[in-house]
């Protein structure tokens, strides 16, 4: 299943209570943590739970987290890949 990146952004904005941010403001390739969206490690807690809730995909360890959370684009790819398997 192909992940619609706009929908993914909307889910993240809504579930993480990101105020004053629209999907258009989020660069597909910008890092999710540290810079870019400006998320912090506690947002990662929510994000892991959100990904499981909406896509039934688990981020099992730090190595997977590093890959998945690189950017919105890589998160979408991670979800697609793990939904297949």
């Amino acid at each position, binding site marked *: 299943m192909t992940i619609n990146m706009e929908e993914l952004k909307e889910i993240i904005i809504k579930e*993480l*209570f*990101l105020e004053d941010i629209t999907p258009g403001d989020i660069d597909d390739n910008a890092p999710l*943590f*540290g810079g870019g969206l400006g998320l*912090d*490690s*506690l*947002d*990662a*807690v*929510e994000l*892991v*739970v959100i990904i499981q809730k909406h896509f039934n995909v*688990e*981020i*099992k*360890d*730090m190595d*997977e*987290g*590093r890959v998945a*959370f690189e950017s919105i684009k890589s998160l979408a790819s991670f979800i697609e890949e793990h939904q297949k398997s």
Partner: protein
Amino acid sequence: MGLHGSEKNTEDKRIWTSRSIGSYIQHQFFYALIRIGGRRLAYFFLYFILAYYVLMRPSVRRRCYFYLSHRFPGESSLKRIAHGYRLYLNFGMVLIDRAIIGILGNEMMSVSFNQRESLKNLVSEGKGVIFLMAHAGCWQVALSALGYLKTRVNMVIRREEGDIDRHYFEHQSNDTPFNIIDPEGYLGGTIEMINALKNGEIVSIMGDRIFGSLKNTVHVDFMGEKALFPFSAFKVASATGSPIALLFTHKNGADHFVLDLAKVIHVPEGLGRSGEGYLPYVIEFVKILEGYAETHPFQFFNFYDMWRPSP
């Protein structure tokens, strides 16, 4: 805890250190005393060595005054030195106790715990449990007494470069009984915490220490003044649905501790990003911690300025 790995800036420096006031040789000396003469011999030397530190090292005295000036406001300088000595003495004894467990075995220290079944039932719900503790009494003794739960424990602790005092399990050659999660690792170890809780395991967090950024902290009244406390544990609980068990210990005999399940907190989901939503739950924890410091004033071991103004 702030759970941050890469978000430090000059405004957000951690405000405490876990480094010991003693040297490597002094620690080894005490470990040797424990092996030779057990607790009594180690305690005996502790009285004299601590007297030197408290009387001769103003920097050591300063570290305990942050707390003592709030717990015993307006006391005389002489009284404060006496209280500082008593506080460090109790702390030193606790460090010796935890080394005794590691070197001589768990059976050297007894722990009373009247809520064994309540805690077991909480763990058996399968949602994972967050043990929220504090630097009060000896949390390591508490954990050493919880083997009956038969559940993996994940401890969120930071070992600083230069830390020379050993945790009790580090005295033993066999594998650590805990999985250690580094709160200053990638994304503050949050992914490991979530997965541990999802597997029904225990994650043990200190509720009175901040790691990394101060962003995930709230100000709460503590002993008459606003102090900084992290809300991270409550956010993890909110996201995972795991209950929080507030666990406190106090020493009430030379070789005896009491463990208390002070409260179980369930944090609802959807409380938002800021600390505001979590504030009532942090307050619950802080009130219990304050009550602990009232009852056991010389078993509260935070030697840094918890009350410093916000950056």
